[in-house]
């Protein structure tokens, strides 16, 4: 079987081949060098999709909620891409990716694409892969992108930070309200959801959260973070949630969503450039051996570092005007 090239895969993606989209996401996950060029070829189609991050502690019902959101967006005629992120085992590096079990009724819907992704450690690499996967789904034509993560670590925050709107899902019991504030979930939330609103304690949690958001600000100043009670299991509150997300999006647009996205892309470029340069210097240009030799000769580490950095910087030109 001839392995696909960036060109051939991106052609298939544009033609609507879902397996090409799936493969492109795999390239992003694996750091395949074909990903960058492939994304470049379809980049003009990226930007139409709205990105909503859905995070929260385990057991809050996020997957069920994502399923309900997808259903509602489909009823509006919008195409939905879902990225479901689960943590990798710190021991084996493997992962059990079971979120899509709750979205099963969407499996054969041609307007929905669901991809499970493992966090593969918390070095930030996963966050990049998630952004890349969203770009690929966006280029394919998905208009609503839902990114689900378990909100317990930095990597998960990085992922949802890449979303336009972050929805934090909590549920009554186990002191979730207080935990959320401790864990910093409250700071990233643009919309707060109290799921399982039929359970006792839900009203109290809604009130507690209402108070808490008046005390703190959301990520962007002066957006009034709404607290939305829902019951994902029976579909109540979903319309209100969609409305809250839409309101936030409108506000972002007014605030300059395009600018914000641009900034994020700049950051993305920075990350990719840094990674490439670093990889090249340390594996291909003999810096590792240099450092080792100098340290062995007795030079202290910071002097070695300054020396190497200066060498590099003195030979790198200013960025200059961009060429297309």
């Amino acid at each position, binding site marked *: 079987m001839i392995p696909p090239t960036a060109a051939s895969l991106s052609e298939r993606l544009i033609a609507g081949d879902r397996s090409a989209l799936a493969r492109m996401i*795999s390239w992003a996950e694996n750091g395949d060098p074909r990903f960058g060029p492939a994304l470049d070829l379809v980049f003009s189609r990226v930007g139409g999709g709205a990105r909503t991050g859905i995070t929260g502690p385990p057991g809050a019902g996020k997957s069920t909620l994502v399923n309900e959101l997808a259903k509602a967006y489909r009823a509006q005629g919008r195409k939905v891409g879902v990225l479901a992120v689960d943590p990798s085992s*710190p021991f084996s*590096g*493997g992962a059990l990716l079971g979120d899509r079990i709750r979205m099963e009724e969407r499996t054969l819907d041609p307007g929905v694409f669901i991809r499970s992704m493992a966090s593969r450690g*918390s070095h930030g*690499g996963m966050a990049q892969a998630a952004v890349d996967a969203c770009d690929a789904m966006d280029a394919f034509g998905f208009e609503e992108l839902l990114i689900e993560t378990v909100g317990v670590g930095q990597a998960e925050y990085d992922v949802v930070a890449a979303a336009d709107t972050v929805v934090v899902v909590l549920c009554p019991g186990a002191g979730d309200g207080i935990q959320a504030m401790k864990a910093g979930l409250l700071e990233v939330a643009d919309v707060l959801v109290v799921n399982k609103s039929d359970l006792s304690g839900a009203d109290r949690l809604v009130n507690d959260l209402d108070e808490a958001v008046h005390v703190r600000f959301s990520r962007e100043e002066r957006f009034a973070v709404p607290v939305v009670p829902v019951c994902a299991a029976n579909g109540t509150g979903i319309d209100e949630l969609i409305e809250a997300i839409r309101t936030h999006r409108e506000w972002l647009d007014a605030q300059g969503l395009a600018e914000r996205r641009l900034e994020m892309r700049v950051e993305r470029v920075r990350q990719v450039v840094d990674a490439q340069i670093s990889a090249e210097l340390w*594996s291909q240009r003999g810096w590792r051996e240099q450092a080792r030799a100098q340290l062995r000769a007795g030079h202290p580490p910071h002097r070695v570092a300054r020396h190497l950095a200066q060498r590099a910087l003195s030979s790198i030109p200013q960025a200059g005007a961009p060429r297309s």
Partner: protein
Amino acid sequence: MSATSTTTGSSADATRRRIRVLIGKPGLDGHDRGAKTVATALRDFGMEVVYTGLHQTPEMIAEVAVQEDVDVVGLSILSGAHMSLFPRVRKELLSRNMGHVLLTGGGIIPAEDIETLQQDGFTRLFGPGTRTEDIAKWIEEQMQRRWASEGDQA
């Protein structure tokens, strides 16, 4: 292949390619102890395992395989309906250009049926009493071979 080196040596390394496996339960059979035990064991061997849950039609399994771009599809069935369901899953995979995936499975499947299915696209099937470790090692071996011949370029 990725230019990022494994500097930390952590097994949970950001861009190392992982074997992606789909464990599917086709048909109405509700026995999932085996499927879940195998899924857990494969995870412990460093693979990324998507579990479909119960009561999947052959189309659903194939569609998930496409979206998840899996390397391996493993079917588990204890209801005696394997001679109907396994070939149908294979057919659905082929119709979606997923003929390259490693097809395997297990459950309550008599030896003669194992032979028939192994002639027809199922590289290997595992009967009761198989060690999950052996399944994991076999998958690893198969994938290493395939990746080596592809030159890590898929």
